[in-house]
């Protein structure tokens, strides 16, 4: 039995990270530390999430090239075509769902 690719659930943290990927261009790579700084999420959340997204093939990872000897290499992540499509599809489904809001006084807008 082959292991299926993990399903990505659109939690708030997942959306934060994926929105950041959408906001940055392909020539502006993201790496773990930058994602933690830009989103305000801790490394304890970001790295497991990046791993899941990579296993689901939503993002692709490459090692930094041309780095000086005194600094370790970063691992750059970019949103893949599959990730872009799947995220857009999931967001469309999510937006079609009815949104229940609590309104004081019983009035629902």
């Amino acid at each position, binding site marked *: *039995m082959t*292991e299926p690719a*993990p399903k990505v659930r659109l939690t708030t943290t997942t959306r934060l990270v994926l929105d950041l990927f959408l906001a940055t261009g392909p020539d502006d790579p993201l*790496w*773990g*530390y930058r994602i*933690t*700084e*830009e*989103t*305000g999420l*801790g*490394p*304890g*959340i*970001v*790295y*497991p999430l990046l*791993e*899941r997204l990579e296993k689901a093939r939503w993002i692709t990872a490459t090692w*930094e090239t041309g780095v000086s000897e005194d*600094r*370790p*290499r*970063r*691992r750059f992540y970019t949103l893949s075509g599959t990730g872009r499509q799947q995220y857009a599809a999931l967001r469309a489904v999510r937006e079609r769902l009815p949104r229940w809001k609590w309104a004081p006084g019983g009035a629902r807008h």
Partner: protein
Amino acid sequence: MRSVSRRRRSPSAVTVFIAAVMAVAAAIGGVMTVRNVVAAFTDVGTGNVAAVVAVVVAIAPSLSTVVDAGNLARRLRRIAGRTRVAAPLAVAVWINGRSRSWQAEDWRAALTESPRPSRYGLGLVAAAVQMRLYDLGGLLVRSARWVLASNRRTWWPLGPLLVFAAVNVHRSQGWGSAFYTLPTIIGFHIGVEWLRHRWEITVKPRRSTEDPDGEQTDRA
């Protein structure tokens, strides 16, 4: 989006201890110096030139003691700082295991960038623990999928267990209570089917062999 801000850190216990040691050393050195200087100058007053040399000799060891204490404190502080950063990273890499050893380089790069590396290192430990728990969850799900993929693997262990439960309830409480185990058995069946549907598991078809007459015979 959050901007990076450097907060002022309160001194750690190690820093306070080193400062206390330095203060004591400086106080002892200072008292000795003052006593020696006073004694030497008293001699200078009487016209003894050698007393000037005595002043220098008196001051020098005390000063060197203070300088040595300062150097030691600086070195200890540097070691403590390095350990505070290196220890969580080492723990995180160890928890992560060999299959994710490649991540160590990326994490070292992140620690060099972070203004608070020790805190970031603790976050990396949390990340490693989470990834390991995710692995464990994946292993359990894979095992469950393997069991659910076959009726034999699912019901051969579950069936006798449920029958034993029904018999046990009948023996201890009578037929009336045993009758109420029926919903449990039905619940198990519904649960198994629901899991198969949710995980999109197709049950393995029964193995069949062709008999000499050309008819299909079920073995399982």
